């Protein structure tokens, strides 16, 4: 206990860290009381699996948001990577069978789109909101063109088995997500990329004046986000067995929500990948719990909205201060 401002628990340093955690625990306990099987091993595995792809996306998004920007293009990137991978590995449309090379090329498509995002934002100075919105649309259009009314089915057994399979009873996608999270954590805390991102978000002017290569790190953040979105698209396609333009449908808003619930500030400079990971798990728990306690589909959106609002309030309560600007 080391009260920072001497004003009770809600402002203690510990709560800074634990706000989202408390929210998560409250949700889990609540859902378990309503439906005991919620806490079963099988369901926890399902929740982990549902968190996996959003978590991967959120790690990428975190660095962009830490810099005070936003990446709205991830659904478009996922669509492109989904179709790219589906058309390069053994599939129903093209005669190709590139296997792992196909997967790498699909990831590269994400890198390329991320790079374009970065250049448009950092060099052409288009606000990230507009730039990535445009790229989202363009990427979806390109994916639609690739799809051409015949979504390619993935016949590559290795990829399918990886997407749906488990290793030591842990779903493979969860393992990938954990690796990505670890990578994000290292990048954030032990590399220039992480520290400079924080600095850029905290105050871009200051960062520039102190000689940081701001533009380069901005581009890097978008490239990283693009890469991870492409990875999300590949994993999603491996699961459903299809190159599908809607593979990332709804993921962009979910990712931004997760990042914010976790406590990363949209104005930049505050937060981190662990927080975002917590945010994604919270969202997955809410979605899963709604089905578990049997809320009718007609009401789910409304209830979900209320829960998300309450959770963000609880999770970011400690950030409240008179002088903090929220937008």
């Amino acid at each position, binding site marked *: 206990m080391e009260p920072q401002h001497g004003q009770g628990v809600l402002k203690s340093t510990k709560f800074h860290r634990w706000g989202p955690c408390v929210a998560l625990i409250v949700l889990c306990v609540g859902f378990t009381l309503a*439906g005991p*099987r919620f806490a*079963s091993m*099988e*369901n926890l*595995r*399902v929740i982990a*699996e*549902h968190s996996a792809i959003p978590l991967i996306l959120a790690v990428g998004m975190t660095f962009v948001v830490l810099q005070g920007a936003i990446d709205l293009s991830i659904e478009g990137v996922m669509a492109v990577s989904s179709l790219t991978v589906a058309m390069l590995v053994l599939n129903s449309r093209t005669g190709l069978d590139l296997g792992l090379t196909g997967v790498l090329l699909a990831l590269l498509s994400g890198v390329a789109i991320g790079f374009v995002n970065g250049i448009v934002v950092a060099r052409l100075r288009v606000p990230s909101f507009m730039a990535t919105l445009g790229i989202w649309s363009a990427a979806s259009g390109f994916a*639609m063109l690739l*799809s*051409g*009314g*015949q*979504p390619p*089915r993935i016949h590559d057994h290795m990829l399918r088995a990886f997407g*749906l*399979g488990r290793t030591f009873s842990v779903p493979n996608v969860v393992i990938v997500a954990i690796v990505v999270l670890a990578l994000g954590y290292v990048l954030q805390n032990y590399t220039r990329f992480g520290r400079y991102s924080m600095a850029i978000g905290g105050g871009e002017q200051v960062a520039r004046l102190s000689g940081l290569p701001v533009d380069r790190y901005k581009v890097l953040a978008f490239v990283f986000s693009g890469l991870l979105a492409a990875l999300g698209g590949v994993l*999603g396609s491996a*699961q*459903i*067995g*299809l190159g*599908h*333009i*809607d*593979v*990332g*449908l*709804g993921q962009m808003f979910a990712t931004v929500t997760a990042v914010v619930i976790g406590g990363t500030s949209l104005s930049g400079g505050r937060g981190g990948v662990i927080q975002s990971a917590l945010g994604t798990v919270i969202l997955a728990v809410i*979605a*899963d719990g709604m*089905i*578990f306690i*049997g809320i009718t*589909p*007609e009401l*789910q959106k409304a209830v979900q909205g209320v829960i998300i609002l309450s959770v963000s309030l609880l999770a970011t309560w400690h950030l409240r201060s008179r002088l903090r600007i929220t937008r």
Partner: protein
Amino acid sequence: MKKRALGIAGSLLFMLAAKIVAAPPLCDKSQIRLVNSMREIAQPYHADLDRGGRLFARWAGLEQRYVLQLNQGDSAKQVSLMRAMLTTNPMCTIFNVEPNADLVVQPMVDAANQSGAWIVTHWAHREGLHPFDGNDQWIAHVAVNSFEAGIAISKLLSDALGGNGGIVALQGRLDTDPARQRFAGLKQVLKSVPNLRLLDQQAANWDRTAAFPIMQTWLARYGNQIRGVWAANDDMALGALEALRAAGLAGRIPVVGVDGIPEAIEAIRKGEMIATVSSDAYYQGSIGLAMGVCVLTGQVPLPKTWPKEKREYYLKLQVITKDNATRYLSDPQATAYAHEWDCANLWSRSMGKAY
């Protein structure tokens, strides 16, 4: 001699009769334009609408006169694309319309009435609107009875389970009419089969990636209580199927859907799904054009003289199961539809009035 005179008189009479039944052509055939107006072509359903239209155009020798209009889900654009086409030669233009939304039918019919263009619509329109209420350019509305579709797949699912056990249902977007009607069909069947229990229903918004996690959560919650999966469309059925596959249950739990997309038919052939119903996109993409050509070439009388049930009727749905799946797997030839495109058989798939 007498016999011959009678014969001549007879054939004269016949020609006269034919003259009355079949009006003189309204357009020179080379002037006829065929327009297929639909949402987009990224989904198999829409791609098949377009293919059906092209198949007909080639069969009718009008391949060069075929136009595809895509509105990308934008209703205003669907109307404005039509208006743009009406600036030249509207009287010989036929629109076969997959409405982007129910509300778009009215402005498109108005545009046809004003310009003299011809229009055939599919699926649904807002209530109280009918081709036979003075909309002379609106040749026909070919409605799809989503309630019947819901009943058909529900019965097949029930039969597969011996009318016994728990099922889960994936609904489409709850604010759409087909979603409501198909689910109403399921509820109707559930009422008549007391031992068939609906464990839970969720909306997966017609979407495969949304259906996948819901099915996984259900498996965690209900485990082996789930004996069958009902989905309001094939895309969601296939999403659920992949979740079943991940749990090693593909092919062991019967799954039904609606639409008849190629992947679903393939899954039925492999025994991983048991049934789907199709409105037959090839047919929907072509029948309106066929009607229009029959009207414009004078092979059938003007639509305003037709009885009501020929101008607004329900389309017969095709039920696809393992028995007939292979027939639907390959791309059809024009010969498969030639009989139905013939001006004498335009209503061969009518299930009766839809008003």
